[in-house]
């Protein structure tokens, strides 16, 4: 992980993004996950030599694979226009309720499993719909975040790296 400071906000009003003081020179690449000790902040979408742009979890263009901690139901967490987040594609039979915690599922993207994304505040179950959705309050106060950690090795990559790291030590057949 690389620690970085927030040095600015998106140059336009159209995206909810922050700018970090670390970039390609520090090993940061697009699609890397960004967290604080409280939970998920977003993911890197653009880098320069010494800075990077992180699309926040509250941006409607962002999508992270999530998991309801209690029920183990999976879904996709996206930002909302109101600056919150919503979890979509929750199975209709799920017993999800207000106050349930949503964490990263670790199946897709560059977040390891189990990082807190937010807490469910409202369930939206429409008649005739194939799935239900839930509104989340992000765990991290996105407006006040000053320092973050960039996850340089994804869950999948670290597993592969660990597997390949074992190979040189093994006797060749």
């Amino acid at each position, binding site marked *: 992980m690389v620690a970085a400071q927030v040095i*600015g*906000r*998106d*140059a*336009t*009003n159209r*995206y909810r*993004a922050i700018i970090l003081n670390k970039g390609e020179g520090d090993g940061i690449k697009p699609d890397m996950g960004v967290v604080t000790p409280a939970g998920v902040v977003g993911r890197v979408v653009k880098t320069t030599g010494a800075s990077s*742009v992180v699309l926040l979890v509250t941006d409607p263009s962002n999508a992270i694979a999530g998991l309801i901690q209690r029920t183990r139901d999976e879904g996709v967490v996206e930002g909302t*226009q109101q600056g919150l987040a919503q979890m979509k594609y929750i199975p209709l039979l799920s017993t999800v309720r207000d106050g349930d915690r949503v964490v990263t599922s670790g199946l897709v993207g560059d977040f390891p499993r189990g990082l807190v994304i937010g807490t469910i505040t409202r369930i939206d179950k429409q008649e005739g719909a194939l799935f239900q959705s839930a509104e989340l309050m992000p765990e991290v106060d996105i407006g006040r975040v000053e320092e973050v950690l960039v996850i340089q090795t994804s869950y999948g990559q670290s597993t592969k790296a660990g597997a390949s790291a074992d190979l040189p030590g093994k006797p060749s057949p």
Partner: protein
Amino acid sequence: MKFVIYLILVLLLVPLQTTLLPHLSVWNVKPDLGLVAAVLVGLFAGELEGLLVGLAIGWILSLFSAGELWLSLLTNGGAGLLAGFLGRQVSQMTSVSLGLGLLLVSLVSGAFAALNFQHFDGSQMWWMIESIVFPQACFDGIVGGALYWILSQRFDVIRLRTE
């Protein structure tokens, strides 16, 4: 000399737009100083310089935004070019007419950017225009008009525009 001034302007815009303005934003909306600068340069220095400075601003600001590069180049470069053309057609420019022109340019470029959000449905697009594009266009118009008024108080703007 002009090149150095433009370079300083472009480089100064980055910390202003990304670090200072978010603290001065109203309802999380801040003016687009890049667009304002491109329009003012186009107005005073002609369409070619407006286009080039607009492209430079678009490129550098896109490095610090999650948005697409081509969209930033198109809106800022296009605004500089358009301002250069319009500036030669309008003989009596006032801060109010410039503000209104900037409002329109910002509205058009913002609406174009909103249309580029392909995953947005109609209601989301309308929300974006209503709560981001329109307030920002008003902001841009006010800031541009105010800057022009300040310039016109300190310099002979008619001479500046004809030089």
